[in-house]
């Protein structure tokens, strides 16, 4: 078992998230995290899915995902070729440790975005290991609450998943419409 990150371009149509979730549920694939959001093209949304599974199962997951009519393109986001980030918001009681906490926050290039009623709210972005490191150091001081986004990933350099979509190349997959008789041979 190992962790894999998939970037999936999907048509921005109602129910597409449910289709992906339904597929993962039905085939018993476990999702570590799932992030969905708009892209530079308003007709296309991008999902970043983190999974923990065997390599040969990953091929099957990608093939099954691609069977969904609304799925446009899929790519594995490997550590070497992509930038990966998570976002963390965490609330910590400052108590008498204000300076120690501020030092930890600075060490992880995080930001104190709110200080009120004896609590820090800290915003951090980074690779999962950085976020985990920050959380480990903050935990002894008492974490009141935290929220994390799922991982998002983008390829380095000029490569783009959207290059692989037909619409991005100005080519549309036109299918001639047949009638019933055409399907009968």
């Amino acid at each position: 078992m190992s962790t894999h990150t998939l970037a999936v371009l999907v048509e921005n149509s109602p129910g597409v998230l449910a289709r992906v979730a339904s597929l993962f549920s039905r085939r018993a694939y476990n999702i570590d995290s799932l992030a969905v959001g708009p892209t530079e093209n308003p007709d296309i949304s991008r999902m970043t899915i983190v999974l923990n599974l065997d390599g040969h199962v990953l091929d099957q997951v990608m093939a099954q995902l691609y069977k969904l009519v609304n799925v446009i393109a899929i790519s594995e986001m490997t550590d070497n070729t992509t930038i990966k980030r998570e976002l963390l918001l965490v609330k910590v009681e400052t108590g008498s440790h204000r300076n120690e906490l501020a030092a930890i926050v600075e060490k992880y290039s995080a930001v104190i975005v709110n200080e009120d009623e004896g609590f820090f709210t800290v915003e951090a972005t980074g690779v999962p290991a950085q976020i985990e490191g920050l959380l480990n150091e903050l935990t002894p001081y008492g974490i009141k609450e935290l929220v994390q986004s799922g991982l998002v990933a983008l390829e380095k350099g000029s490569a783009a998943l959207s290059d692989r979509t037909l619409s991005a190349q100005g080519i549309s997959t036109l299918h001639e419409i047949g009638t019933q008789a055409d399907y009968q041979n």
Partner: protein
Amino acid sequence: MTGASSLVKSLEAAGVDVMFGIPGGAVLPVYDPLFDSKIRHILVRHEQGAGHAATGYAQVTGRVGVCMATSGPGATNLVTPLADAQMDSVPLVAITGQVPSAAIGTDAFQEADIRGITMPITKHNYLVTNPDDIPRAIAEAFHIASTGRPGPVLVDIAKDALQKMTNFSYPTSIQFAGYKPQVEPDAQAIRDAVALIAQAKKPVFYVGGGIIKANASRQLMQIAELLGAPVVTTLMARGAFPDSHNLHLGMPGMHGTVAAVTALQKSDLLITLGARFDDRVTGKLSSFAVNAKVIHADIDPAEIGKNRFADVPIIGDLAHTLNVLIPALQAEFKKNKPDLTVWWRQMSSLRATYPLGYDKPADGSVSPQYVIERLGAISGPDSIYVAGVGQHQMWASQFVKYEKPRTWLNSGGLGTMGYAVPAAMGAKVGMPDTTVWAIDGDGCFQMTNQELVTCALNNIPIKVAIINNESLGMVRQWQTMFYEGRYSNTSLHSKRIPDFVKLADAMGCAGLRCERPEDVDAVIKEAMSINDQPVVVDFRVFRDAMVWPMVAAGTSNDEIMIARGIAPDWDSQEL
């Protein structure tokens, strides 16, 4: 015009000539313009019947089957046939009415989220709330259902979208951002396949239902005769290759022939054509065909490596794939052709030693296998045979001899009891000049026989052979074998209740009965002579007959039994 008229015009533009359905509140607007349409709408008695009838129609014609239902319970009654069609890759379009868009999500009367419910059991589905979207949704639905790996597509349309005014314009082309099935095989994959076939000493053609879907039986015959290797046809592929052909070893799997099961087990190369390594074929996967390399040709990339690693995957339409593979093999065989003499000596010995067979019941009652064997012999290979699910299904697969594709219909993947009568109805509508026999169990028949009323009233004269053993026979067989004969809830208690002959009569069908072996031929011939109404024959058969051979679920194919506790005599075979 209204959205409903636009829908009917769209269905006409898609070439629909017949559909099966039941009206109701949300879908009612469609039924008004449908009243004036040239499309034949067959009013069924239960929406499940509409779905299976559309499947039967699609399976015999190769066209898209169409069914329609209203919202809520009408739509949920389509769930079983949709799941069935998804498992057996049947091109269906299901139209459902939905509550008005403003009421969606309010738990309105007869509201069910049928799009959500059917997501995992359809190839794709739509919820249409704007009447302008109806023609495109219908065009896309027919395209998706019938291209690539076929499957069911549901189009759910809100009632207000059916009532509002719109302009009808059927698209001449449609555009998908992602959907693009690969039809042509990859040239390198073909070369790799040729190389494996040229080296093989024990090749087997493992043929699945995809050959029939691709209308590639002619190419299958060519490649089989070119290589001269054994052919096995799965439950979904019966008829894809003639049973009378010398290369054919029959059906593999849980109730397959000893020769077909063993050919796969001992093979060194599985030439897999439109099959999916289903558990009913492989038995215990880790011990399935352990010495075989695998060529896996399929239109669906997700089938590659799903259950069994493929040494050479070939994605593409099987007819196109074989059209390329055959000349490539012909060229290779001029230099180098495998010698299969030893392999055939082994397989011929197994085929001769372990033919399919059955014992006559000691009590003189009618043997179910004999009924089915005689039915196939008398009605012949031009008839269409449609089975339910259970023992009678396996016997119909084993003892009817199939010579042509699209003459054998059954619920293979989902195993839907009650499939036979409505599917036979749809098959007869699709092929009205062909004799259509439903071979059904008494358990199955009691699930969906109401469609005989539909048949009687709409001039759809199917024939039904009820293999009446007053039991849920296959489950009873498992209780015999694995539950020490504790027959919990598998007895239907009576061959007389219901009285199937009276029931047939009540539904406007001819009812016949057969209780003695010596009457079987005469009763079948009498049923064959009635063509102006449906016929139901109540064959009261031996209760304890069992389906053999058998590979028990979860065990290795090597543990095939030819009768209870009896394995083939492997020591006497040269393998």
